[in-house]
């Protein structure tokens, strides 16, 4: 009742409504189905009241009960409802109808009316309103305002200023949502225009330094710049990759889920004649709201890249040759069947249906537990943490929880580069007063945009920080959230420390990996000893019963990725079944090459890769847009999507099903069966995994005991290596997007001023970072950071850390470029 009493009454065009306090008139009207025309209004941006298209007449009650009309029409997008307010829109007020027509006429005065060649035509707010409320002919005979067109705001985003109606949606987005003011208003009056933010415009603003520059030499734009194209109500902002290629009316639009990160962002895939032409953000308030990273928006060509595998290949006489599906399936099963053991490496990009197919195919058809999806740095502690506290835990910490937590701590996680839209939700939290604490060697650009508080930490020493979290932060952490990134697996004892911190303080834990298939892989049980739905080896009977199939596992848990590769390289395991694995992502890349070369290798891949080059049988599989499926995002939320494109390609599950059939194994690997199985199993009920919420662990009873480690001290001329992947880098997901790549951050080395001085380099000088394996030379950017720590982008042009240096953490040599190392 109290909430009902708190509602306000408003009358709009004679309709009485009850709305919560703070509701804007325009939102209240939407509830009543009354459409108020608008341009600058956007529900996720702060009101600006600039376009004046949404004016309404407003009367408010006086203390004596009489209604007092406001002297001027008011912008419905900016005025909150007051109890007893009476509103007239253009539907009932001739004044307002006239006002809206007047604004529309003004907006069209200088508009080029080039709808026939405009990308936005067909989905343009101005066009819609001009068609419904505009004049048939102009009353203005003066020449129109023109500009040279277009301006490249970034290499991906183009601005046609003469189409712009100056609604400030893009500039407000840039400043408010990602906090990247890469575009801004210039000039005034008739000359007012949107333009690139010029950091040199004011002497008191620092000039762009190396790390603010994109590869094309422009000042760094934004990982989220593409949202402005979708936000633009007219055709002023367009993307260079979609420009002039299609009309909305030509496109088939399919709702889908983005595949580049673990967020499961809702997208619309827009296709024509079997080709994806663009992707838009879907509207999912619980997950990505209406925003996308540029990687998710523009990175789709990889799915139809020239190196796409379309027909099966079999190695004959040392050469990979095209084969029919029956031939390839027969060859693959023969090899797998005859081998003395098969190791399964499915990769971390699978849907839950495909992941479950791998899991069951390995356990039932191949009768092996030698399975590990993690083609990235990993640890046994992490595996235990994932198996016990993530797999089968259902929906845990959510995006909404991030928005409401008073304190959010980040460990092994750079929010902007590794979090995507998580970063935007954290920005929202900060705007609502949350405090962000980052356990990292320095405050990254993303951390600065979150006003994050840094706990300067050498990579590897996170456990010691986590054990003193309350003292270090001085905060009540009972409602806090600790985000654990996948890089934390590089730090010994850190997962137990995170669990101990949760047990002590009651904070919530969220594990946010990078890849889209990580959580589904856990739910499917793609780790040795882990079965579907968080079940363990002890629950094998329960699984067997659910499957109505025989499931006898070897006595001991199977091998993990490193052990599988070692065994395959020595011949102990005779065959490998490999999914989407890039060998260069593995710390054991050389071992992997040896293993794949020696073992009989079957690859299920979308595109030719280093792994397929070493395979014996290649079975092409469908990329996400050519199959239906379900990603599970880091929250544990199911993100189902339909097939967007017609295709001949088969899903991983379908291919595995064919292999199972050929092996004579009656295994139902269809998506329907996968969902039946997960529904039947539900959450685990056995005591070992019933905890599921980490916060419920009893204080002082850490589940995994592990002593903290003390790191070796880096000597002069040495440094602890810190690195992570930037959002837009040499990843194969965006290697076809040259425009997007030109907007990526330029590669630099970061050192503290004192450490730089030790090796005799200053800002911008070239520094060589080396191991016995190789060296990387890049310009240095002096950064306030922990001493004797060096940071490099992990997978950027000129900075391929893992392949070049052979490691991503630990001690490396640093020296001024061209000088001999001081030994």
């Amino acid at each position, binding site marked *: 009742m109290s909430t009902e009493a708190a509602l306000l009454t408003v009358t709009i065009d004679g309709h009485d409504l009850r709305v919560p306090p703070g509701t804007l008139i325009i939102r209240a009207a939407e509830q009543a189905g009354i459409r108020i025309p608008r341009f600058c209004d956007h529900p996720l941006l702060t*009101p*600006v*009241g*600039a*376009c*004046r*298209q949404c*004016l309404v007449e407003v009367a408010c009650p006086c203390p004596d009960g009489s209604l007092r009309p406001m*002297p*001027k*029409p008011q912008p419905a997008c*900016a005025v909150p409802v007051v109890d007893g307010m009476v509103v007239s829109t253009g539907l009932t007020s001739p004044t307002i109808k*006239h*006002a809206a027509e*007047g*604004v529309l*006429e*003004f*907006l069209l*005065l*200088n508009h080029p009316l080039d709808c026939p060649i405009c990308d936005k035509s067909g989905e343009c707010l101005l066009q819609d309103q001009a068609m419904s409320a505009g004049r048939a002919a102009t*009353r*203005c005979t*003066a020449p129109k305002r023109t500009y040279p067109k277009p301006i490249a705001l970034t290499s991906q985003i183009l601005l046609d200023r003469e189409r712009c*109606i*100056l609604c400030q949606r893009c500039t407000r987005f840039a400043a408010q949502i990602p906090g990247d003011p890469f575009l801004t*208003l210039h*000039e*005034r*009056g*008739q*000359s*007012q225009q949107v333009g690139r933010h010029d950091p040199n415009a004011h002497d008191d603003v620092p000039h762009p330094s190396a790390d603010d520059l994109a590869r094309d030499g422009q000042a760094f734009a934004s990982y989220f710049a593409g949202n402005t194209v979708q936000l633009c109500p007219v055709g002023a902002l367009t993307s260079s990759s979609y420009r002039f290629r299609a009309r909305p009316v030509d496109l088939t639009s399919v709702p889908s889920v983005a595949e580049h990160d673990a967020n499961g962002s809702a997208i619309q895939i827009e296709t024509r004649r079997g080709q994806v032409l663009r992707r838009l953000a879907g509207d999912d308030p619980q997950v990505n709201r209406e925003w996308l990273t540029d990687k998710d928006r523009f990175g789709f060509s990889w799915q139809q890249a020239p190196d796409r595998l379309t027909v099966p290949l079999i190695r004959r006489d040392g050469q990979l040759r095209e084969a029919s599906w029956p031939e390839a399936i027969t060859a693959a099963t023969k090899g797998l069947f005859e081998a003395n053991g098969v190791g399964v490496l499915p990769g971390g990009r699978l849907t839950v249906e495909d992941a479950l197919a791998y899991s069951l195919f390995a356990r039932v058809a191949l009768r092996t537990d030698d399975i590990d999806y993690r083609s990235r740095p990993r640890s046994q502690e992490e595996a235990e943490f994932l198996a016990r506290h993530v797999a089968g835990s259902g929906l845990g910490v959510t995006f909404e929880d991030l928005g409401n937590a008073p304190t959010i701590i980040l460990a092994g996680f750079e929010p902007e580069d590794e979090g995507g839209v998580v970063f935007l939700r954290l920005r929202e939290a900060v705007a609502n007063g949350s405090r962000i604490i980052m356990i990292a060697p320095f405050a990254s650009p993303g951390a600065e945009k979150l006003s994050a508080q840094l706990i300067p930490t050498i990579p590897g020493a996170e456990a010691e920080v986590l054990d003193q979290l309350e003292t270090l932060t001085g905060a009540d952490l009972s409602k806090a959230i600790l985000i654990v990134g996948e890089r934390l697996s590089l730090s010994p004892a850190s997962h137990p420390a995170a669990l101990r911190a949760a047990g002590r303080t009651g904070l919530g834990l969220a594990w946010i990996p990078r890849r889209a298939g990580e959580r589904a892989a856990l739910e499917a049980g793609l780790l040795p000893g882990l079965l579907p739905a968080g079940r363990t080896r002890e629950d094998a009977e329960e699984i067997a019963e659910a499957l109505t199939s025989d499931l006898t596992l070897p006595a001991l848990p199977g091998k993990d990725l490193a052990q599988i590769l070692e065994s395959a390289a020595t011949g102990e395991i005779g065959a490998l079944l490999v999914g989407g694995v890039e060998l260069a992502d593995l710390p054991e890349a050389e071992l992997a090459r040896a293993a794949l070369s020696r073992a009989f290798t079957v690859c299920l891949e979308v595109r030719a890769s280093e792994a397929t080059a070493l395979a014996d049988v290649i079975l092409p599989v469908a990329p996400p847009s050519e199959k239906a499926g379900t990603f599970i995002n880091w929250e544990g939320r199911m993100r189902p999507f339909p097939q967007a494109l017609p295709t001949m390609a088969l899903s991983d599950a379908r291919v595995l099903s064919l292999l199972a059939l050929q092996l004579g194994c009656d295994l139902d690997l269809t998506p329907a069966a996968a969902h039946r199985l997960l529904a039947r199993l539900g959450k685990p009920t056995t005591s070992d995994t019933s905890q599921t919420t980490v916060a419920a662990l009893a204080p002082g009873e850490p589940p995994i005991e592990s002593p903290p480690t003390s790191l070796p001290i880096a000597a002069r001329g040495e440094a602890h290596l810190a690195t992570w992947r930037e959002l837009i880098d040499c990843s194969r997901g965006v290697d076809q997007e040259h425009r997007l790549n030109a907007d990526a951050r330029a590669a630099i080395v970061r050192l503290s001023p004192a450490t730089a001085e030790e090796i005799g380099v200053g800002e911008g000088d070239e520094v060589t970072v080396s191991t016995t394996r190789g060296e990387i030379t890049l310009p240095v950017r002096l950064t306030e950071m922990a001493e004797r720590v060096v940071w490099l982008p992990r997978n950027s042009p000129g900075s391929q850390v893992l392949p070049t240096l052979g490691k991503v953490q630990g001690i490396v040599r640093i020296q001024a470029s061209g000088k001999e190392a001081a030994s």
Partner: protein
Amino acid sequence: MTTLTPLLTRRWATPESWRLSTYVNDGGYQALRRALAQEPSAIVDAVKASGLRGRGGAGFPTGLKWSFLPKPDGGPRYLVVNADESEPGTCKDIPLILADPHLLLEGIAIAAFAIGCHHAFIYLRGEVVHAHRRLQRAIEEATDAGFLGDNICGAGFDLTLTLHAGAGAYICGEETALLDSLEGKRGQPRLKPPFPAVEGLYARPTIVNNVETLAQVPGIIANGPKWFGSLGTEKSKGHGIFSLSGHVTHPGQYEAPFGITLRELLKMAGGIREGHDLKFWTPGGSSTPLLTADHLDVPLDHESVAEAGSALGTRAIQVFDETVCAVRAAARWMEFYAHESCGKCTPCREGTSWLRQLLARIEAGQGREADLDLLGEIPDQIVGKAFCPLGDGAPACVTSSLLHFRKDYEEHIRLGGCPFDPVACIPVREDVA
């Protein structure tokens, strides 16, 4: 017959009127001492009781504005002085700053004390570098003498005063655009609410007052609110500077009680220039609709001028005689508004430019009959729909000139050119000629 009341302008003719010594010898800063001995709320009450209304054009009651401030919460609250005098024809604040800066500074100190402000800002129009220099020097003098800075007059009140020069935008005279500009952003008006009294400069409670408004405060404190209320009219109390410019024999500043008429002012100013007759005049700058010789006896107070169809505005009375082409005047003014529109809202940005284009065409003799209909309709699409008063006031010159002098427009179209001699309207001073 109303007489002049030189209070704000009393010292203007004194040699070196701007010096602190001149001001102090004439009893300056006594009101500040008196104010500091009172409760701050007593000052607010006195200003409220005096009936002082804002002198920046809108005429909002000053004491009432001050009382809108939320209760002190321990954080800063600011006083911002609007000295961005840019309205065409308005020339009262800058002369006041040049001739008697300490009167303003005393008013600022008293107002700051009244509202609990310890850091005040003066936003001065950027073009008036000479006024900037003089005001800066006056602030230094007053600070050295203990009338500003720490522990003012030994009464334990601290006030830092910062002088900031604008960068040449008319819109920054609008109080919220002024605040944005003062914060270092582009000067564009803000949405209200929140009003500056609640969230103003740096999102803190802020009072924005005009120069002349604050210059009235020492007088009210020294002579009492009753004395102030005895001047002027029932609802527009007190006195103010009337700035006469244009075709008058002796243009200049005439300080008089509200309610004086233009007929009286013209008499004091020696009338319209010899041999000519009044054609039209603006009562308060170019944003107020034109009045004509029919309005010579309208009392110049907020209510009477509004009743006559215009607004008192800043009392910038621009006088034009019969040699002036109404189309030309409107076209020049509209060039100003189109140039100064900040561009934020559609009606003002697009509407003023369209009007400018139309007026230019008519003035050049290329207008058409239908253009006059547009001149009637376009203002209607702007007024009341614009974001801030700039747009709402901009078309006033078009609407009122069309109302009173439609014949001028029709003649342009009929003749294909201007019927007026453009040289005849240039005032020639006999001593120079």
